């Protein structure tokens, strides 16, 4: 990390070396893959944690609910970077030595799980009471109520917020570069340090992220519109 200021002073090249990018496209393809892999693991894990917590919050006794609320507050009021450092640099003192990538998964699921718990919780709350009453009147068991009535409706109510959180989590993958996980940002700074191709690398990195996030945020806008329409229709 102390390298960065040094690189900055040594930077001299001004002309853009497009060929360099072409020569190294495989490394960058790999970095894009790592970004998505970490993002997708975090998204899947956080969705599981969030859904489970939201269900527990609905049915469990008070101590358990307090525990989950405590977890949400802790996860949301501390930076991902520090969560990551505690796991990656701190846990080895207990003999738990995790790779950068596994630490990244855990930290991001820890963070994302808290956000998604809130989203699913309010999604479950937003399902109309009459739906639940009808389900009970039909004699559905509690599990069946959840499986066939509550979760499907809560899911579509939460969809825009969910999607926004997924984009947020995918953006947070940049932070895990700090524990040397070779995703896009790490690959970029690494190449700047190795070859001093600052211009090219910055341009490529920005381009890659724009190519990933602009379509996603457009999709989010469309999703929000569609959900609004669905609610009007309803």
């Amino acid at each position, binding site marked *: 990390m102390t390298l960065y200021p040094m690189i900055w002073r040594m930077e001299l090249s001004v002309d853009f070396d497009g060929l360099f990018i072409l020569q190294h496209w495989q490394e960058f393809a790999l970095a894009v893959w790592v970004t998505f892999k970490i993002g997708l693991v975090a998204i899947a894990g956080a969705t599981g944690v969030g859904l489970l917590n939201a269900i527990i919050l609905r049915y469990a006794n008070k101590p358990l609910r307090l525990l989950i609320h405590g977890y949400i507050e802790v996860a949301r009021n501390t930076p*991902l970077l520090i969560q990551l450092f*505690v796991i990656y640099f701190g846990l080895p003192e207990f003999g738990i030595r995790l790779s950068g990538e596994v630490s990244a998964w855990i930290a991001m699921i820890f963070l994302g799980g808290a956000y998604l718990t809130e989203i699913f919780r309010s999604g479950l709350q937003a399902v109309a009471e009459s739906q639940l009453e009808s389900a009970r009147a039909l004699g559905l068991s509690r599990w069946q109520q959840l499986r066939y009535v509550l979760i499907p409706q809560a899911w579509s109510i939460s969809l825009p917020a969910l999607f926004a959180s997924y984009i947020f989590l995918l953006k947070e993958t*940049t932070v895990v570069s700090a524990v040397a996980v070779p995703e896009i940002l790490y690959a970029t700074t690494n190449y700047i340090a190795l070859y001093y191709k600052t211009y090219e690398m910055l341009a490529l990195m920005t381009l890659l992220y724009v190519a990933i996030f602009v379509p996603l945020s457009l999709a989010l806008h469309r999703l929000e519109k569609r959900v609004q329409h669905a609610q009007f229709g309803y």
Partner: protein
Amino acid sequence: MHSSAIDFLMLSAPQLLRGLQQTVVIAASAIVVSTLGGLLFGVLRSLNIPFVSGVLRLYLELVRAVPLLVWLFVFFFGLPIALGLDLSSISCAILVFSLWGITEVGEVARGAIQSLPRGQQEAGLAIGLSRQQLYRYILLPQALRRLIPPTMNVYTRLIKTTSLSVLIGVTEVIKSGQQIIERTHESLLIYSALFVLYFLLCFPLSMMARQLELRWSHG
């Protein structure tokens, strides 16, 4: 073991606090700029002036198109080459977090203004208020209640985000912690202390935001 851990943290405290000062400087500067800039941004966006709205929208989408840490690196590495501007890393961090904060507070402000019942604006114009008076006496005072809780949440996010400035070499609280770790190898203790420290900074703010939201949602 326990007492030695406490002793160690007491010994490390002065250095951590020096770093914390930098963190607070970054956070406070970004919060002030974001609040003022964001209010302006929100009001301008709510006015729907054709050209201005387009420019602001472009700025917003540009900031959001790419993760914040990427902007931090692009500004830090890119500005010296592109403009010959030799910004210190701390100024660079304040600049990037402010630019980001303006869009976040700005969107909150725009949402708050636009969520007011349309009748308020129409009634104000009907009794002959100018645009300026309309905003000064009718819209902004009402929007303020809807605006403050989510803006406080933006502040907690800004405080959390200042942690990223260590990655461009700012000697803020995390960097101070890392310096202590380099000397003593007590990474678990120091990072846990930082964890608690950030929590103590952010938790009261987000609690307050929730309380205010609850209280004002009835009014």
